[in-house]
Each structure stands twice: as structure tokens, then as C-alpha cells.
């Protein structure tokens, strides 16, 4: 479904990604792991069009989408939930969600869709009129994911959804991610929390300073000694 071919990207002279090759098949959950500054977010930015790669190509369902404007890429069905819960703080929960459906032309059934979304996120349903900025961290993350779902993505890319959340909430978030996936949305998940990410994912890639150093089946990676040592902590 998604294919990155020899992607290299730069911020000025800083080389953020070098010759990344990556594939996501339809229906999969794929995790992208790595230390701070490894280039995980940059990879997602390249896919969603926020960062133009210097070399290489991105293919989505056999279309070359390299260098397209972000809004066109959204039309292709790729939705990126940026890191740091970038919800719109001054807008209400409902308005935030409406923005999610911004690109969807037929506005007839968006109310149904809202109800649908609130089923996933009951906590948000009681807070429809509350300003996004006044939600708790966990609620904001839920809102960010919910907003992404409003766009009816085929590929949903989440950047560190568990960042800064209590373990119980993290569990909820991962449950929701699994549920979304089971309803047919393909998922590319960036995470620091490698344990959790490898548990939900089918496959995973591990980035180190802009290069992919390991890749494979999530289960295999979870039991790989080198990976364990570097990313999962010795207590695993």
C-alpha cells in the first residue's frame, strides 16, 4: 500500500534521513521505532508532504505522491497525527472533529460519523462543547486521534500517541489503535514505547540516526537480543 524508496531528507544541511526503504501493506500495523532524533517524525513528515525529500520516492497504492502538497496527500487517504497532540486549543471538541472532516466533500453524513467516533471515545462525547485546550492530556490525544479518524483515512500515521500519558491511558490508546485497525484502517505507528508498540504491531522498523538498522516481524524483533538490549531495556 505504502512504499518508501531510497528516501533521503535534509533540514538545511542536517541530514535527517538517508536512503530509507520501508513498506506498509494493507491492513497491517507497522511500527517505526528509534531513539530521540533518529528521524521517525521526519519519515512521517515526508509521507504526509510536510517535508520534501531530497532524493527517493514515496508511492501510495501505486501512485507516486512524492512532493505533492499536504492537502492533496490527505485526499489520497493518508492522515498524519503529528507528535505533541496538536489539537486546536481554542476550538471546541466538536469543531476540532469537524475540521477532521475538512476534506470530505459530502457533508451529509458527518453527524453519523460524529456519533460513530464518540462510540470509540466516550470520554469525548460528554465534552463536545468544551474547548480543546482545556482537555486533559489523555483526552487531547484521544481528540487528536478522533480528529484523524473523521477524515476516513486508509492509512493512519500516529506520531508517539503515548507520549506523556499515564500507563493506564496508554493501554486505552493502544486498544483503540487495535480496534481502528481491525475495522480496516492500515496503521503506521511511531513510538518510543517499544514494548507496547511491538506488541500491537505486525511488523516493525528500527531507525538509528536516519537509517533503518533493523526490520522484520514484530515478534521476532521483540525477542532479538540486540534489539532487546538497545530498545527494550534489560529487564524485558
Amino acid at each position, binding site marked *: 500500500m505504502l512504499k518508501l524508496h531510497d528516501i533521503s531528507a535534509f533540514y538545511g544541511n542536517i541530514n535527517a534521513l538517508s536512503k530509507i526503504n520501508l513498506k506498509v501493506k494493507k491492513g497491517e500495523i507497522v511500527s517505526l521505532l528509534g531513539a530521540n532524533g533518529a528521524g521517525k517524525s521526519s519519515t512521517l513528515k515526508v509521507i*504526509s508532504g*510536510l517535508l520534501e525529500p531530497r532524493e527517493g520516492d514515496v508511492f501510495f497504492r501505486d501512485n507516486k505522491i512524492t512532493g505533492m*502538497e*499536504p*492537502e492533496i496527500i*490527505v*485526499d489520497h487517504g493518508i*492522515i*498524519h*497525527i*503529528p507528535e505533541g497532540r*496538536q*489539537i*486546536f*486549543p*481554542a*476550538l*471546541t471538541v466538536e*469543531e476540532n472533529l*469537524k*475540521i*477532521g472532516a*475538512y*476534506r470530505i466533500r459530502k457533508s451529509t453524513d458527518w453527524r453519523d460519523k460524529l456519533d460513530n467516533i464518540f462510540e470509540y471515545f466516550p470520554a469525548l462525547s460528554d465534552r463536545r*462543547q468544551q474547548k480543546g485546550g482545556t482537555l486533559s492530556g489523555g483526552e487531547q490525544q484521544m481528540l*487528536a486521534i478522533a*480528529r484523524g479518524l473523521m*477524515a476516513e483515512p486508509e492509512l493512519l500515521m500516529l506520531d508517539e500517541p503515548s507520549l506523556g500519558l499515564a500507563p493506564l491511558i496508554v493501554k486505552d490508546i493502544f486498544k483503540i489503535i487495535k480496534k481502528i485497525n481491525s475495522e480496516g484502517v492500515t496503521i503506521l505507528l511511531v513510538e518510543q514505547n517499544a514494548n507496547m508498540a511491538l506488541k500491537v504491531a505486525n511488523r516493525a522498523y528500527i531507525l538509528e540516526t536516519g537509517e533503518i538498522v533493523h526490520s522484520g516481524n514484530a515478534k521476532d524483533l521483540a525477542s532479538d537480543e540486540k534489539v532487546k538490549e538497545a530498545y527494550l531495556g534489560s529487564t524485558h
Partner: protein
Amino acid sequence: MAFFKLFNNNPYFKYILGSIIFVIIVFIDLQLGLFASRTVNLLIRVVYFSVVAIGFNILLGYAGQISLGHAAFMGFGAYLTAFISNNYGLGFLPTIILSGLIPMVFGVILGLVALRLERLYLAIATLGIGVTIEFVFREWVWFTNGFSGVRLSRPEIFGFAFNNSRHFLLLSTIILFIVILFTYNLINSKTGRALSAMRDSGHAAQAMGISLFKYKLIAFALSAFYVGIAGSLYAYAERYVHPSTWGAELSLDMLAMVVIGGLASIGGSVTGAGFLVFVPRLVQDLPLIGEITNINFILTGLAMILVIRFMPIGIYNWFDYKFIQPFYIKRLNLNKPGGDD
């Protein structure tokens, strides 16, 4: 009861009712002469500055873009009105619309500049444009008549001349009414939400498929249109347009109106315009303080500092939040306060 509820659930009614009351008062004034003619002139200023503040608020409050050169658009609108009505004798409506549309084209150009510059740099660049434009207006003699300024006469609609200030107040109030309702619908539409999304988080907005290119241009174009229209009202009201009016002080006054009244709020825009027109006048009549030269600049600056320090949401929103919302909640036992725009 049902009446209050309607109000609380849909702020739209608040604006319709507020506008209608305003128009009715002005209409009664027309019949009975309620206000002193000095007050009528001040009210006209409040009306056209309200249009300015609403336009500027779309840019700053809703879209999160700064401009310190918007006085140029107002001046341009005013000169266009004088030029069109003096040379082509067009009526009020086509003149005021052209005086909005032509600055709007220049608004788009400024928007293109804004695509390359952000925040502080944008503020500096637009301030530069604002300072330069004063000279342009001075030198562009065939259009502006240079230092002598241009005169024009009061507008006419279908042969009816609005010669009397009271008549003109009614006319401009109706324009403000239309502007308010249009703006209310705009900010609650998809476009309005996209503007706010761009302000809150450019990256997230882009990731949701919102084109920053498109909405920056829309924000600058719309605000230039509003400010141009206000300039047209200014020209008709004062019947004289002079180049020194359109300097940086006016642009800073626009900023002050929006900050003092309330960012991202229509009611706040009108409040801010009222504040900037009335407060200096009231103070001028005071003994001692009123004699200080440039007292209005000092007052505006002081008011901005106080508002930012003590009620950063602006006077209007603060009042709404402190008194009006609690009133609704108490009266109706609502646990869900209705939001303002």
C-alpha cells in the same frame, strides 16, 4: 425563558438582536433627535471603526496573522470612494463595493508576502509598507490630490441624498449590521474553522488537509476588503480625505481596538471600536488630564497594557464570561454554558 434559552444556545440571535436594537435606536434618533449632533458624528466613527476592527480581527484574532500596515487599505478605500464618486458619479453601493474589492486585490498581494514571512518579520515588513504608503498617498497626486486632500459629497441611493448626519448614521449602521451577520456566518463555516485551525496549529491544520497558502490569502483578502469598505464609509462621513490620516498610528489603533475589545470576537471588535472612539473624547473634557497633549495615545497604550495584564481575553469577552454567562446559568439552571463565537 425560552427566549433566554434561544439566546444562550445560539449566539447568532444575540448579534441579530443587538444589531436590530442599534438600528432602531438610530432610527428613533432620526425622528426625534435623541443625540447631540456631536454624538451622532462620534457614533458614525464607532460604526466605521467597528467594520475596521471586525476585518482586522478576522486577520489577527481568527487567522492569527499580523499586519501593521492595514491603515493603507483604509486610506486606499477612502481615496477610491472620493475618486470614483467625483470622477464617475457612481452611486453609493457600487462605489463602496469597489472600494472594498480593489484593496482586496492588494490584500492578496500582501498575503503572498505573508507566505514567506512569519510573526515578527511579518509585523516589521507590514509596518514598513504602512509607513511608505503615507508617502505614496502624498505623491500620487492625480489620484489623491496630494497634500491638499480631496473633498466629496455625501452619498446618494436611488436619488435620496444622505445629507444629514443622522441619515448617514442609519445607513452606515445598516452596513455594519450586514457585515456582522456575514462575519458571524463566515466564522462558523468551514472557512472560519479552517482559519482558526491555521492559527492554532499550522502543522496540524496542514495534516488535516487545510492549505495554508489558500487560507493566508483568504485572511488577508477578507480583512483588506472590510477595511477598504470602512475607508469608504469614512470618506462619505468626513467628506474629506487627507494623506496624513493613513499612517502607522491608525494601524496601531486597529491593533489596539482588537486587543482591547477582544480577539476572535465580533462583539469584542465593536467594543474595541467604541472604546477607541469614545474614551479619548470623554477624557478630553476632564480638567487637567484633558489638557495633556496626545492624551489619546497615552490612554490607548495604557488600556492595552491593562487589558493584556488583567483581562487578556478582552473587555467584551471578560464581561461576557464574568456577568452574562453566570446570569444565564443562574436563571436557567443550565450546566452547560453556551459558547460565544
